[in-house]
């Protein structure tokens, strides 16, 4: 059986390289250069899939990416399965393993095909009208049933092993499509010296030239001319040729995305190659040369395996040496199918008849067929087909002048090739936001005026006939090059013989003599949409083409209506009694053909998904067994469990250590901004609620920053290093936002201020040393700074050296203990840390992480922006009116603080809460109510913002935001939890060292 349908010679396959592959477990042989579709056809296999809804047997229809039926799953190794690949695009390789889809148990016997029997019920939109009773059945019965019946292939179940790459490219002229138009355009642009990228979704460049067996260009065969042109282009180093590369997205400003398939066609791809590559191309000019797509004819039973597009039959024959059948009927309304007939006949195929819809077919193509001895019938229409898994015969009818049809008889055949004419492929033009224009003469939508720097060429432009297409291509290439450089010159259009334009075409459902209620003529093959469905939609009031699309799902399948849209539109237009241009067209969207998710995600995967920021001391923490938490892009040490310690134990120990002796903490992730310039103090005075003009050099101040809406946006400590130089710190997560916010005001509101902002977050490593022994620990290492409280009190900053490294030493505390933050240049951070750690360790101290830091500050009632506050909180809410300069005339957010609802009673205020049972630790986020068992929908009084076990208090404690909380101190309130209601008392938010004596010691 192998190669039973293979021609004896010719085509672009390598007959000396046989390739074994399997389809549904059965082995077949093809040749290198075959696609899965061509190889199956050569083996006589047409039946390759089942349709979406009715599970009807379906065959290969096209030879390109517009294929609606022949979708297969390709299995490679684990983690490398891919569903829904189009057989005409799958290149075979040794060992290829393909499976049909959407059938059970087998392709030839599919239980789902009962749906076909029920098809009178399963019309467009049927599911909106039923499955409503009983109510609970939708979710339990109907939906699961519908879901499992729907869908095509099976999603992969293992993580994808392959890699994907990205490449940003620029060029003068991007040419999409490499048929005669694209090659000519690329040629013209390249000869003008332009930087050119030429891509084509097919494995081989050349487009229709590769299967044009009769035309001659410059005295050469079309294919030879293509090869020579491509060779010349490939030798030009300003030209990039990209086969297997689909132009899938045309975005604003000539930004075009291409998807290159790098390894899928290889039997054993080199592991260092990516599977696919995303090309993000910025082109100065674009030439769209994507060809035209042949339209199916809409006649009853037009969906049998063996029914194919006529041009596809020609492509399989001339390019792959594969015959669609041995006895072929050709049904057409267009001249181009005659070429297929002639070529088939020349290859020895029996062409039973050309059934032409047109009353009197005439012209060169018709003459050629007639003189080849092929029977041509005018006014002849196919009215049905027979055959279960492959077409066996075609029923022909005669169209009478009044439009009615009489039976002509049946023609036996094993393949039926059809052509309803051509639809210019205007997808990418439309994506570029161009508006297509209906051309009555051409019976097609054609590209209208260019919106971007783009032009269409060749048959996608409505230009047919090889010479005209080449001419159009040269014109487009030249004009594109000219738009880029005036030096553009244009090569002569070569002489052409053959390749005359083929006239004709039809749109919509064809007339027939059969009982309309019993036959179905398919418009959208994959989604099983028939002409009747479209008519039903119109009848039900769906008059917009967009409604018709969504109600019938025509054009929504994986081919996105490439074959069906014009036929659907025509049927709708008839039903609505409105001309086509008034019915409109649905929107073309990216991607042009489906694109792998991995190709969009490219290298953003694992650690490279987002940069992982680590501090200079990160490795030390890893060595010490720290657990980490993600804070914005940073990894921060969370806590340092000792062997066998739980998180709770570790944190309690760390807390106690800080309170009793000393702890060391990596604060490097804090945002830092150096604010410098004569107006620095004035600037800070405007952006913080606090007054800054009088802050002395060498002093620190805690500041709050508001959004203009008055809500707390960030906080931090600001040090005045010099009259005109401040060291500002921000929260870790807030750093980029704060810098942008400050730049915004500086550049747009106050450009007159002489002050500049420089991020120094990563300049400094920051080592916090906190605890009663902090000074003892660092003193031996510090040079040039008097650490005594008199000389360096709480909230001051000094410059000097530590371990010989220049430092900005902050005396400050976020723990309530006396402490320091040692800023040293990042590259020296680890060495200083090591030295400090040695002393800390010797003093019985310990490293602590963010969790301990959070507990310690909560004991002091210090807020964390983002935890106590949530973007709806003003300073007064968290008891920070003290930080708002009363005498200040202005600062960002000031006006918002006096808005009626901001000063109204009932706002939530920061308080402490203590559970009656000191062992109970509330959960953060828990809600607070006034009643022990509140009725449902009782508004909460507030919620717990921070909650910990406090080793200093020897019990649990929490902070909360509670309505009018400060007035309720002493009240007993309730926290409903899953385990029951917890009784708590409202207390002051400062639990530890309320007088602050420890800080100034």
């Amino acid at each position, binding site marked *: 059986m192998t190669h039973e349908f293979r021609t004896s010679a010719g085509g672009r396959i390598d007959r000396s390289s046989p390739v074994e592959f399997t389809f549904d477990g059965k082995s077949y042989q093809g040749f290198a250069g075959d696609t899965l579709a061509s190889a199956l056809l050569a083996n006589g296999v047409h039946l390759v899939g089942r349709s979406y809804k009715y599970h009807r047997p379906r065959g290969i229809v096209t030879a390109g990416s517009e294929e609606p039926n022949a979708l297969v799953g390709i299995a490679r190794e684990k983690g490398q399965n891919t569903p829904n690949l189009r057989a005409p695009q799958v290149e075979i390789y040794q060992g290829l393993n393909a499976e049909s889809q959407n059938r059970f148990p087998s392709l030839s016997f599919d239980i789902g095909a009962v749906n076909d029997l029920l098809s009178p019920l399963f019309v467009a939109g049927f599911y909106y009208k039923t499955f409503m009773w009983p109510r609970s059945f939708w979710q339990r019965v109907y939906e699961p049933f519908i879901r499992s019946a729907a869908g095509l292939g099976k999603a992969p179940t293992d993580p994808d092993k392959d890699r994907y790459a990205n490449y940003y490219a620029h060029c003068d002229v991007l040419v999409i499509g490499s048929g005669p138009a694209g090659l000519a355009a690329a040629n013209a642009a390249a000869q003008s010296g332009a930087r050119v990228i030429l891509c084509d979704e097919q494995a081989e460049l050349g487009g229709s030239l590769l299967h044009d067996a009769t035309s001659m260009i410059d005295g050469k065969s079309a294919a030879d001319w293509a090869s020579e042109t491509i060779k010349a282009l490939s030798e030009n180093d300003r030209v990039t040729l990209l086969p297997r590369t689909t132009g899938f997205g045309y*975005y*604003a*400003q*000539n*930004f075009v995305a291409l998807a290159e398939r790098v390894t899928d066609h290889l039997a054993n791809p080199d592991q260092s190659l990516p599977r696919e590559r995303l090309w*993000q191309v*910025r082109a100065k000019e674009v030439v769209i040369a994507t060809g035209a797509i042949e339209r199916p004819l809409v006649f009853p039973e037009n969906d049998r395996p063996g029914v194919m597009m006529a041009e596809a039959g020609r492509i399989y024959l001339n390019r792959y040496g594969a015959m669609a059948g041995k006895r072929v009927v050709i049904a057409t309304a267009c001249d181009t199918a005659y070429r297929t007939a002639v070529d088939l006949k020349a290859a020895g195929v029996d062409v039973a008849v050309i059934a032409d819809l047109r009353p009197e077919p005439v012209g060169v193509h018709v003459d050629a067929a007639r003189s080849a001895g092929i029977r041509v019938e005018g006014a002849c229409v196919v009215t049905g087909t027979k055959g279960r898994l492959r077409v066996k015969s075609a029923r022909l009818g005669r169209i009478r002048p009044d439009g009615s049809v009489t039976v002509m008889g049946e023609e036996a055949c094993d393949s039926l090739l059809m052509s309803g004419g051509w639809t210019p492929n205007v997808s990418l033009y439309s994506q570029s*936001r161009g508006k297509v224009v209906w051309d009555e003469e051409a019976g097609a939508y054609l590209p209208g005026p260019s*919106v971007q720097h783009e032009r269409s060429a060749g048959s996608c432009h409505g230009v047919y006939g090889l010479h005209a297409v080449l001419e159009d291509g040269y014109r487009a290439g030249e004009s594109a090059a000219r738009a880029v450089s005036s030096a553009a010159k244009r090569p002569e259009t070569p002489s052409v013989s053959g390749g005359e334009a083929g006239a004709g075409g039809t749109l919509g459902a064809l007339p027939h003599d059969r009982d309309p209620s019993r036959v179905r003529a398919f418009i959208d093959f994959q989604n099983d949409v028939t002409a009747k469905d479209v008519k039903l939609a119109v009848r039900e009031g769906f008059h917009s083409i967009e409604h018709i699309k969504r109600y019938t799902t025509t054009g929504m399948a994986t081919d996105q209506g490439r074959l069906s849209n014009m036929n659907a539109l025509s049927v709708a237009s008839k039903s609505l009694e409105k001309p086509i241009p008034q019915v409109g067209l649905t929107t073309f969207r990216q991607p042009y053909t489906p694109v792998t998710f991995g190709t969009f995600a490219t290298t953003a995967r694992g650690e490279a998904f987002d940069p992982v920021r680590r501090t200079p001391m990160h490795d030390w923490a890893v060595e010490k067994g720290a657990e980490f938490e993600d804070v914005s892009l940073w990894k921060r040490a969370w806590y340092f469990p000792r062997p066998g310690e739980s998180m709770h134990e570790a944190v309690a120990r760390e807390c106690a250590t800080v309170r009793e002796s000393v702890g060391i903490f990596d604060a490097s992730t804090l945002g830092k901004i150096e604010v410098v310039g004569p107006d620095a103090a004035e600037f800070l005075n405007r952006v913080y609620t606090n007054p800054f003009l009088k802050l002395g050099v060498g002093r620190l101040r805690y500041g709050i920053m508001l959004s*203009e*809406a008055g809500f707390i946006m960030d906080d931090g400590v600001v040090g005045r290093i010099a009259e005109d130089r401040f060291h500002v710190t921000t929260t870790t997560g807030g750093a980029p936002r704060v810098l*942008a916010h400050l*730049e*915004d*005001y500086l*550049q*747009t*509101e106050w*450009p007159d201020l002489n002050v500049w902002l420089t991020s120094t977050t990563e300049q400094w490593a920051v080592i916090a040393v906190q605890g009663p022994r902090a000074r003892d620990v660092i003193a031996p290492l510090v040079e040039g700074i008097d650490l005594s409280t008199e000389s360096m009190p709480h909230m001051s900053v000094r410059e000097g050296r530590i371990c010989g490294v220049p430092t900005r030493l902050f005396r400050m505390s976020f723990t309530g203990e006396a402490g320091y933050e040692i800023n040293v240049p990042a590259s020296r951070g680890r060495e200083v840390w090591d030295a400090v750690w040695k002393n800390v360790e010797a003093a019985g101290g310990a490293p602590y992480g963010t969790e301990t830091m959070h507990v310690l500050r909560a004991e002091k009632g210090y807020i964390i922006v983002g935890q106590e506050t949530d973007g709806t909180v003003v300073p007064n809410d968290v008891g920070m009116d003290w930080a708002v300069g009363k005498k200040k*005339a*202005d600062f960002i957010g*000031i*006006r*918002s603080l*006096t*808005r*009626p609802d901001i000063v109204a009673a009932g706002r939530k205020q920061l308080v402490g809460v203590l559970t009656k049972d000191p062992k109970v630790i509330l959960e953060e986020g828990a809600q607070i109510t006034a009643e022990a068992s509140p009725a449902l929908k009782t508004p909460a009084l507030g919620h717990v913002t921070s909650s910990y076990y406090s080793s200093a208090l020897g019990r649990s404690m929490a902070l909360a935001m509670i309505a009018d909380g400060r007035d309720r101190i002493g009240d007993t309130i309730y926290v409903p939890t899953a385990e029951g209601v917890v009784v708590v008392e409202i207390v002051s938010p400062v639990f530890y060292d309320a007088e602050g004596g420890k800080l100034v010691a």
Partner: protein
Amino acid sequence: MLLISCPYCGVERPEIEFRHAGEAHIARPAEPSKLTDEEWAEYLYMRTNPKGLMAERWRHTHGCGRFFNAIRDTVSDKFVTVYKMGEAKPDLDQLLVEAAQ
């Protein structure tokens, strides 16, 4: 992805280098405290949100860092012009006429 030309760098760069910064020419009141609640709400929240030409701010965040203004058509997303901070807002009607030519 838009391509945006930065009036400070003098080159066109991809949108990912930029941050959109909202409607342009909404000057912060010199003395906010003098505003009524209505006026303050107007400043804070009310936006032109036009369908058509819009004056908007962008920042060349991952480039020169500068904020600048642009006139863009919010239907076609085409930039009509960009100009530096502090320069006067062009006459949009005039621009429309020019664009039509």
